[in-house]
């Protein structure tokens, strides 16, 4: 990201919408000067680029707390460049990228390399997440100080849980030095017992090994007890179960410093999707029962869940086109997250203001990230939304290098028309 060269831009004919600033004004224009929202009455410099908002909603850009860009090491799945293009197309202006690359992002050199690639690509802001333990092996703490200094904004062994309660205790205690969260993929691995989908009626019928809800719940319960002991900030990744939501809700009532995210697939689908989407509906945690889906929505409604993250996890076609139990876990999500989340608004579960908070202000706040704002002087990380526009997911293709999504072919209502980072247009939808 070339901060110094923040752009000038005039966005005409938009509905300015920034709930965290209490802004909702139709028929407006917004002027951006050097990457920041200009004060009212500022004059438009000659040669300022313009875009016509066509009456769309102009909002702060989305912030994804959980994505996998796979670089270095798995560039055949995704790169910082392709992941950034997917993020921009999905309205995300900031993306936090997980450490399970090869080599693992457990040292400052890798962190700097990722940031350097992101700067060269120059589309969205990329925030590396450092490993909790060296090599994600769960044995020794990574050098969190060096990682933090190099630019890591959180720590996680995502892909697997923090190995033991003691390791989590040390990580939470030590991370207090930097005021940065420890993100845990909450799963009791022995209880999951090599399961490949949710344990329930569908797994029983398909003869696939099941992952019980208790696998997530046991792990969250452990983490919360350790959090109470150790202090620090625990962030629960991809919450998927009713019991998990309940545990986080209770901990919040006791004022423990725990935050949580969920992903669009956990409130959009159930394990029934495995029947028709096969390995494209295989991710970890797995799609759960309808009761869990509704509990996740309830957690979003009552604020137990702070953020909607994507857990964007690209895999190559030859990896997903395998027997179900052999295929890797994970689906892509950056390009479909907004439209799927908007269904929560259409179905009356939350308001549009609440959705914007879940996708932007709140995730940025809990991880301490810069985020867009429409107030004068605010960072011009913005997204232009066409709430009525229909499109078909994955057609003609995804910007991501991979296409492992159960939503491909689904008709979506509401799309991202343009994405602006630091006043520069990094994505503009080409309309028919």
């Amino acid at each position, binding site marked *: 990201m070339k901060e110094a060269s923040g752009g000038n831009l005039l966005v005409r004919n938009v509905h300015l919408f920034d709930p965290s600033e209490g802004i909702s004004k139709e028929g407006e224009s917004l002027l951006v000067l050097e990457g920041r929202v200009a004060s009212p009455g500022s004059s438009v410099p000659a040669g300022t680029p313009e875009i016509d908002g066509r009456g769309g909603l102009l909002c702060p850009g989305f912030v994804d707390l959980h994505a996998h860009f796979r670089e270095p090491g798995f560039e055949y799945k995704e790169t910082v460049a392709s992941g950034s293009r997917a993020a921009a197309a999905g309205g995300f202006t900031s993306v936090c990228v997980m450490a399970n690359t090869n080599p693992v992002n457990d040292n400052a050199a890798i962190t700097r390399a990722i940031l350097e690639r992101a700067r060269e690509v120059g589309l969205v802001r990329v925030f590396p997440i450092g490993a909790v333990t060296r090599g994600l092996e769960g044995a020794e703490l990574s050098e969190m100080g060096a990682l933090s200094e190099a630019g890591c904004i959180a720590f996680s062994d995502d892909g697997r849980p923090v190995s033991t309660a003691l390791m989590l205790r040390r990580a939470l205690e030590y991370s207090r030095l930097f005021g940065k969260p420890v993100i845990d993929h909450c799963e009791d691995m022995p209880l999951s017992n090599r399961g490949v989908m949710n344990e329930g009626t569908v797994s*029983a019928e*398909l*003869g696939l090994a099941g992952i019980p809800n208790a696998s997530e719940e046991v792990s969250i319960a452990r983490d919360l007890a350790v959090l109470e002991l150790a202090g620090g900030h625990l962030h629960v990744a991809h919450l998927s179960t009713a019991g998990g939501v309940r545990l986080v809700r209770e901990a919040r009532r006791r004022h423990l410093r725990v935050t949580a995210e969920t992903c669009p697939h956990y409130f959009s689908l159930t394990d029934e*999707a495995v029947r*028709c989407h096969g390995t494209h509906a295989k991710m970890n945690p797995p799609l759960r029962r309808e009761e869990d889906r509704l509990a996740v929505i309830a957690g979003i409604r009552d604020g137990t869940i702070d953020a909607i993250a994507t857990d964007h996890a690209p895999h190559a076609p030859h990896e997903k086109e*395998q*027997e179900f139990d052999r295929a890797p876990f994970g689906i892509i999500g950056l390009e479909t997250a907004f439209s799927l989340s908007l269904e929560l608004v259409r179905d009356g579960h939350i308001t549009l203001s609440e959705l914007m908070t879940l996708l932007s202000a709140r995730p940025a706040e809990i991880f301490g990230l810069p985020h867009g704002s429409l107030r004068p002087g605010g960072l011009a990380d913005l997204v232009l939304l066409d709430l009525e526009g229909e499109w078909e997911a994955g057609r003609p293709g995804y910007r991501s290098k991979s296409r492992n999504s159960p939503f491909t072919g689904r008709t979506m209502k509401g799309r991202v028309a343009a994405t602006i980072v630091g006043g520069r247009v990094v994505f503009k939808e080409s309309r028919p």
Partner: protein
Amino acid sequence: MPERSLPSSPPSIGPHLLSLSGMTKEKITSILDAAETFLDVGHQTVKKVPVLRGKTLVNLFYESSTRTRSSFEIAAKRLSADVINVTPSQSSVTKGESLSDTVRTIEALGADGIVIRHASSGAAAFVAERVNCHVVNGGDGCHEHPTQALLDLFTIRKKKGRIDGLSVAIVGDILHSRVARSNILALSAMGARIRLVAPPTLLPRGIEGWPVTIHHRLDRGIEGCDVVMALRLQLERASGGYIPSLSEYASLYGLSARVLERHAPEAVVLHPGPVNRGVEISGEEGFLNEVAILDQVEFGVSVRMAVLYLLMGGRPEEAALLSMPARGEGS
């Protein structure tokens, strides 16, 4: 075998046999009736009929299996088909060719049908989505083993004269059993009453909607049953922590002449084989002879002849009876 009932070269582009889910009583009955006519072929001096002459069947077995593979091979040869056995070694799977590429290659070689046995649940449907030839599920992971269930039904019908209304107890490792899943589907379609008898550790979660009653004690589970079906216990279940030991399993769930005499004296005893003597079925002298295993093996050939005939060479109107939707449609 009267020629008139089996045209020598009937045109048939049939579907697959992947699962017994959605299979109606009529379809199952038609397969069992066809198997009945094929039973005689095995008793003739020349054990062949020319109905699949010129067709090639590939047995693609990723898991070792003597009886199922041999049974399909004999069945296909009695129908005059050419049979090729492909047995990729388990160890080469991870570094070698993908299943997808393997089956496309086999199809390109000119296979008219593939029988697939694979350790992954869903593998047969996976193959069927990728080839244009017929696919028969010879057992996929813990999912289904349709021809085993059909031969079990055939054996029951032979021994009891009917299936409708019978009480059938399935005893053992339901959780990991493809034989149990296919039997539950087929037996319930035929109107049998099904009891599952197993310790809670060997029952799947999420079976509340299944048309079965659950029993944890063997004596109550088989009380008054017409059929007792013992499942093979994979010996590694003890080390996997599902049961404390094989001897404890044998004492709680092993079938013996004594327990059958007391609780289900009229029952036919079935076992898909191979038997772990002294585990699922007691090793006592003479008792094994009462178990219908060898009948099941013999009937298995006829049932597989019927399936291959109806899929690959049967008259179109008969093949249509087998036309079932592929698993996983809808929603």
